[in-house]
């Protein structure tokens, strides 16, 4: 009996303690927040391709702005767009324009473009080609070309690895290469890392990756003799690229706006963006709109 009452006393005391500390901290917080500008939480959810950049930028930003709490999560571009549309998150990260995603009312969202990502076809090192024409690339991904010898390589069956339907990378690649044609039914993978591994280890394989995922174990052929480099993306000689978007529902609130401004500042654009393998939005000499039309800046 004694034990029981002791136990319940402890429970009651700890509950009281939680209540008291809860009250205490919240009151101290509110008194502080009146003196400082804000104590806010920003959530950015969506594209896994953009996630590393936002994560790194957010952690740098929070060091300078202790009052701001930014949480960055993945989940995919589709998730990012639908969550920001519902108002569940502050910022929705996406590889594609909101206009390109079914079920998203793009007019309600405000686009903030923070970086550019170039994408390139990648092949297994053993296929024996250095260059492909755009038409050949289209032939491979629609299933018309089935053997590497048809495009000047070895006599080896072509194994196409696609990205999952609805992924931002696939939307960008198909927009630039297939021009509305239907892709061959084949293997689909949903992460850059897996694609990199499969292309490196499976003979005859072709797929596509963001520039930052190309390493020495795989080969990125040139297209129409244009090499996949940042410079060629900046002047649109290399056609396969997309913006990284951070969408807000309507105009962002003060705290989010400050963070978005930070993303656009030269501090992020000139060092972090390049360090993590993206292309700075400031370096672009051309502009692309949601329907894919490119104009010079």
């Amino acid at each position, binding site marked *: 009996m004694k034990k029981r009452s002791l136990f319940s006393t402890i429970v009651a005391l700890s509950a009281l303690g939680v209540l008291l500390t809860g009250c205490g901290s919240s009151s101290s917080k509110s008194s502080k927040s009146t003196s400082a500008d804000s104590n806010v939480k920003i959530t950015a959810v969506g594209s896994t391709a953009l996630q590393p950049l936002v994560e790194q930028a957010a952690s740098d930003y929070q060091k300078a702005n202790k009052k701001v709490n930014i949480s960055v999560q*993945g*989940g*995919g*571009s*589709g*998730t990012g*767009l*639908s969550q920001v549309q*519902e108002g569940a998150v502050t910022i929705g990260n996406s590889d594609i324009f909101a206009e390109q*995603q*079914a*079920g*998203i009312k793009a007019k309600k969202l405000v686009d903030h473009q923070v970086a550019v990502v170039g994408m390139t076809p990648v092949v297994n090192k053993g296929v024996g080609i250095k260059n492909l024409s755009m038409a050949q690339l289209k032939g491979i991904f629609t299933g018309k070309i089935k053997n590497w010898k048809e495009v000047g390589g070895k006599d080896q069956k072509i*194994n196409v690895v696609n990205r*999952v*339907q*609805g*992924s*931002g990378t696939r939307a960008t690649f198909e927009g630039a290469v297939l021009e509305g044609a*239907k892709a061959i*039914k*084949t*293997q*689909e*993978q*949903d992460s850059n890392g*897996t694609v990199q*591994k*499969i292309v490196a*280890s*499976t003979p005859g*394989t072709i797929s596509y990756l963001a520039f930052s995922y190309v390493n020495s174990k795989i080969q990125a052929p040139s297209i129409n003799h244009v090499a996949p480099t940042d410079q060629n993306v900046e002047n649109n000689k290399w056609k396969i690229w997309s913006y990284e978007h951070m969408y807000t529902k309507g105009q962002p609130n003060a705290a989010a706006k400050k963070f978005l401004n930070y993303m656009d500042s030269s501090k992020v654009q000139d060092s972090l963006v390049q360090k993590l393998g993206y292309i700075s939005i400031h370096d672009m000499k051309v502009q692309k709109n949601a329907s894919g039309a490119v104009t010079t800046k």
Partner: protein
Amino acid sequence: MDEIKQELQSSSRATHQDYFGKALSYLCITFVGLLVLSILYFITTRGLATFTENHVSLWKFLIEKNWNPGVLDSHGQPQIGALPMIVTSFSVTVLSALVATPFALGVALFMTEIAPKRGTKVLQPVIELLVGIPSVVYGFIGLSVIVPLIRHTFGGTGFGILAGVVVLFVMVLPTITSLSIDSIKAVPMYYRSASLALGATRWQTIYKVVLRAATPGIMTAIIFGMARAFGEALAVQMVIGNAVLMPHGLLTPSSTLTSQLTTGIGNTTMGTLPNNALWSLALILLLMSLVFNILVRFIGKRGSLKK
């Protein structure tokens, strides 16, 4: 006098405790019940939206082979034929259970009949370890070891049902083993004694008496293993290749219901057809796990040991 009367007529402290305990457990039951009901309701309404809101015929969903929910075909109909995924899911499930069962039974018999002390000491931790390894690790091992191995041995890309079966084999093995051990242990000792007294060898006793008596329990174990294999998503997704094609053999890339769900769900928007179609796949998974559960109950009732 009044004091005694009052004490007798009012409820005691123990009675209050009783009420309190009862209320507490009812509260928990209601909570869990509501949770299950809301999950069922959510998946069912979402899963049926494909057929009620988007007017896709259920029959087409179940027997057509084209899966391309974002694109309309030449008749303006969305292409959502889930047959390839249903077939693949069942193939990997049945095959992995078939391959795993003999091994599981061997281990179970070793641990219960042949060398109970030594076997339990060594194998019990091994089995528990196998259960504890996260599925993404199995998937990664599958991707870096099994897939290249299959490619070198049989040709092709290495991705496909066979790779899925190999990975799932390791994953369902502990489930089937530990449940089989329980059912073999539940066979009464006097069955064995009687058999041995009649002059049967140990193997004859195991084969003709113990295994026969434990059959319903072993069947249950296999079905639980199959349920695990059917629901496994991540590890399978990494090695199966994720091509929504009718499997032409064990070596061509294919896609299961779960792997399609995990790859697709982040890239679709709530309320659109591609998203609803994925929920319909989830509904199939839910119904199948229900079927597995009913099977287990059925076997448990019909085959329980009569003493």
